[in-house]
């Protein structure tokens, strides 16, 4: 069913994305690009010591990519760099494998339906590719390809 993909939380975050603005005191930035659909995303992080204090994003995409960026920025706040990196892998596993979802994912489990739509996996991972690039300090635009 189409509702398994577009769960209520995803629709809510796509229509009213959280942390959808630039961050003037960000000390990490990265840009992501999905050449398949032309979606672009800018991610801002404020990292204090080893902790992600704040996270936000700019850019407009499909419901899946917008909701993914919105929920990702919410879940990042307060996490260590190491925890954030682990979350990237767990989120990726959620979308591409049949293994049971990790509890650490919290609300992010709403994206489990994307697994059944291979053409849409890149929509969901755009923000996360960008996060990886921001955390590793790479300044080049990452693409989902």
């Amino acid at each position, binding site marked *: 069913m189409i509702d398994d993909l*577009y769960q209520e939380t995803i629709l809510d975050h796509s229509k009213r994305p959280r942390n959808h603005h630039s961050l003037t005191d960000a000390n990490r930035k990265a840009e992501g690009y999905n050449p398949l*659909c032309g*979606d*672009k995303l800018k991610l801002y992080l404020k990292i204090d010591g080893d902790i992600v204090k704040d996270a936000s994003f700019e850019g407009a995409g499909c*419901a899946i990519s917008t909701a993914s960026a919105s929920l990702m920025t919410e879940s990042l706040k307060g996490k260590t760099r190491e925890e954030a990196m682990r979350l990237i892998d767990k989120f990726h596993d959620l979308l591409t494998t049949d293994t049971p979802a990790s509890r650490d994912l919290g609300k992010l489990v709403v994206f489990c339906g994307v697994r059944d739509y291979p053409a849409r996996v890149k929509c969901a991972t755009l923000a996360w590719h960008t996060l990886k690039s921001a955390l590793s300090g790479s300044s080049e635009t990452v693409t989902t390809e």
Partner: protein
Amino acid sequence: MSTLSSEVGQALGLPRGFDVERIRQDFPVLKQTIHGKPLVYLDNAATAQKPRAVIDAIVKFYEVDCANIHRGVHELSQRSTAAYEETRSKVRRFLNARSNHEIIFVRGTTEGINLVTQTWGRANVKSGDEIIIAGLEHHSNIVPWQILCEQTGARLRIIPIDDRGDLLLDEYERLLGPRTRMVAIGHVSNALGTVNPVRRIVRMAHDAGALALIDGAQAVPHMQVDVTALDADFYAFSGHKLFGPTGIGVLYGKAELLDAMPPYQGGGDMIRTVTFEKTTYNDLPYKFEAGTPHIAGGIGLGAAVDYVTRLGIDKIAAYEHELLLYATEALERIPGLRIVGTAREKAAVLSFVMQGIHPHDIGTVLDHQGIAVRTGHHCAQPVMDRYHIPATTRASLAFYNTPAEIDALVAGLYKVKEVFDE
């Protein structure tokens, strides 16, 4: 569905003697359900479906006649050669070219254009020369010319389009000049459906002393193309958009131009004699056909040309035009939907955006209702940039589509609104 379709069809004044329900029986792929709903295939500009006659021709080649061509004296080789070369004659008649020598088999439109840029182009284009294309082009008629420009130091000039998606011919006139070597234009825009006035464009190019290449990928399946009347120097199209197999296409070129061009790829079949000191090349069209070609594809293309000819390309064009009008009116009634590309003359392509809803989400929800559309930039990113949009949803029609399928699309789009609207 069939009853509704024919009732609506009569109400619409769709051409008589064009029995869509019977034609649909020729296409095995259409008889299936997707996610429990009848397949509504509206992605014909990407690739068209294949009639039974094409599939049978390919199967017959592999089951009965399979052999390499232009080689053996044995029976199978003669049969396969005859069938493959018969397609050349069919295509020559279909395009109204003067001679079979002017019909070069390639993989598709893309390879046809690359053949021209890398043979004619490298031999004739120099630093400071100019190539003109339009703001509507598919990437396949942009990138090969950009590569040629990088190789030669030539410059690419672009004819702009207006808000409707029509070429600005005054601007084209201004771009033409003594430096212009080539004008390369899409006959029909894949992203917007604009039918360009190619006859006039070719004449203007010739008046300026330039050659003209027409990318006919989106035109050949939907309208009569006469390369002699058009006077195009080159004309390329793909078999798979003409209801034929993938991996086979045609480059038409005027014989005197092709004769003077260096070969494209070297190998078997394109030579007359080979020694380590000196190789001489084969005559047209074989000079440009190195290696064993897509024989089954060529034979399948012949069956596709026969099929389309039997239906009648003029009848196809008339039917699709009525269907386009019906679909345009139906889509325009949907609140928040805007059609992108409203050229004066259009092929049956409907590109559109919906307020606040991304094309990829539209595509996924439609797919769930069995409706196949294309979403994205349609390999025409400059067109998307022109309209300041990242992507559109595109429904592209063929003669086997019905008014009932347009109604299904409209219902599907209301479902999209139900999911995403506040």
